[in-house]
């Protein structure tokens, strides 16, 4: 094991973490403002990836595809909010889970209907192809570094949006007292739609970015959705800061666990079994971390103060 390899895995972990943050930020924002648990968030991620892949294939430009992914995911989010989600704010979490579970079935099957069962492929744009040398002699793809940069930029933008703009002020107000801001004359229904579309756009953006390094297929959003749930549970549901730290923690733990545990197991068991045991434990590692964190802090690392 070399330091360079470990550095490469660490970067992969951060890249996964950044993508998870884009998903988790939307989920946690929607929960924080509207009190809604949205299982269909993974479907919006998928919508973004498919929109990007389809438009990129049609126009030949990844960048137009990326814009299309934002537009498509935000539009899908707004439509779903207006048609379905809006009726669920006053319901209990069980109804929300079921209705959004139903939406997943419809999104997945609908996408399969439109695009067929075969995965689509999305090429990395020429600007971001190639690799850079890491200290230690290995090379790292530029595109993955670009994902990290884009994610960091979005995180910063989101922070500015929420802390410095009028919309952000309303979002924060909605989190602390939704009846009061309604009484103060803010159109709360429109605000909800905007927040939902914003969360959807973040998910769609993440889907499009990841689409270029994985295949774009139906069901791609579900593993990410569940990891994003783990992230927001660890971070404290409703907390953007918790989502960011939780996402990096989950991303790095998962990647490094898969990398290190099989090597670590060699010290204790015969090499033939070490890979299998190490791999099996590594695949459960983030859930074990989550269980430990929750055993100590049942409301996550950064529980919102008012909840």
């Amino acid at each position, binding site marked *: 094991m070399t330091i360079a390899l470990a550095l490469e895995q660490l970067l992969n972990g951060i890249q996964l973490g950044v993508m998870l943050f884009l998903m988790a930020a939307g989920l946690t924002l929607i*929960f924080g403002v509207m009190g809604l*648990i949205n299982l269909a968030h993974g479907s919006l991620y998928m919508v973004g990836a498919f929109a990007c892949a389809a438009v990129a294939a049609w126009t030949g430009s990844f960048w137009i595809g990326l814009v299309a992914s934002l537009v498509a995911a935000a539009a899908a989010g707004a439509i779903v909010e207006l048609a*379905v989600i809006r*009726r669920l704010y006053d319901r209990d*979490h*069980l*109804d929300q*889970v*079921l*209705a959004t*579970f*139903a*939406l*997943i*079935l*419809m999104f*997945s*099957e*609908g996408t*399969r*209907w439109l695009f067929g069962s075969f995965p689509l492929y999305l090429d990395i744009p020429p600007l971001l192809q190639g690799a850079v040398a890491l200290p230690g002699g290995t090379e790292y793809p530029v595109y993955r570094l670009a994902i990290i940069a884009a994610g960091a930029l979005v995180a910063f933008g989101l922070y500015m949006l929420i802390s410095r703009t009028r919309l952000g002020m309303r979002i924060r107000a909605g989190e602390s007292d939704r009846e009061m801001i309604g009484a103060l004359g803010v159109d709360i229904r429109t605000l909800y739609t905007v927040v939902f579309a914003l969360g959807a756009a973040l998910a769609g953006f993440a889907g499009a970015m990841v689409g270029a390094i994985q295949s774009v297929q139906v069901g791609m959003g*579900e593993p990410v959705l*569940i990891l994003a*749930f*783990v992230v*927001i*549970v660890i971070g404290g*549901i409703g907390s953007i800061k918790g989502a960011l730290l939780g996402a990096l923690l989950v991303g790095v733990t998962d990647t490094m666990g898969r990398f290190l545990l099989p090597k670590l197991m060699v010290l204790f068991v015969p090499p033939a079994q070490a890979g*299998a045991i190490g*791999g*099996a434990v*590594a*695949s*459960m590692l983030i*859930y*074990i971390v*989550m*269980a430990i964190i*929750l*055993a100590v802090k*049942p*409301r*996550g690392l950064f529980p919102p103060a008012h909840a």
Partner: protein
Amino acid sequence: MILTRENLINLILAAALLAIPLIANAAGQPFYITLATRVAILALAATGLNLALGVGGLVSFGHAAFFGIGGYVAGILASHSFSGEPVLFGLSGTNQMWIIWLVAMALAGVVGLAIGAISLRTSGVYFIMITLAFAQMVYYFAVSWPAYGGEDGLSILVRNQFPGVMTMVPMNFFLICYVILLVGIALFAVIRASRFGAALQAARQNEVRVATVGIQPYRIRLTGFVLSAMITGLAGALFADLNRFVSPSMLSWHMSGELIVLIILGGTGRLFGPLAGAALYVAFEYALGGITERWQFFLGLILLLVVLFARGGLVGLLAGKAKHG
């Protein structure tokens, strides 16, 4: 038993589930027997979940873990019985159903105790997501553990044995499942009507009051959760024997979602809600699957409409609102 409208509907449901395979058997249509067996097993699994979700108000999104654990117990014990190799510590496998059932319930109960002990420290959305996460943990373990087929799953070559019954005959296996379902539903009714059941319902309705009269809600809920896991685990063992196959898909979060769907379709907390829901679900799956390849889309649409507009489920629709006890 007072003959209320709900009880009458329950009787009709139970009779219909028995009548359909009998008729199918007489008509030489074994496919419908398999379908009815599927209904009975899914109803049993959902009855288990109904104890946690309907009675205790614990929205577990991870019951597939227990369902799958039951399934894997059946698969693993049967494969060891076939190969003759010991499972653990020199204990051999078995192809005797009743031993498999006991092991499945015990293991599901132990895992349920571990998952419940941590998850029940939280509530609301946290509980939903944590149970989901733990089920995923079990799922990924099954996928990445190569000894029992990993992602490909594990076949059961010959259906496990029950003393004095030819289990390979579809009708016989259906009757086994049917009897177990009725026992499971009866057990559910007994538990719900007991002092423990009253405490579990009270913990759902008003946690603070339960605590003030000196009952710890945490312990009551944990007990309910473990019992619920055991029933669902038993159903999982039967499901593996029905398909003679077990794979990680039994552990997937779609399965957890489906189990909740069964309860909601039938009517939350209702005695026969899971059976009504399972019958409806399998009927949808079969009927829609016959009409269109895209049946999942329409299933989603129907489910969405039920959640938005018909919250009492099928039993609620037919029998009117539940009386609160």
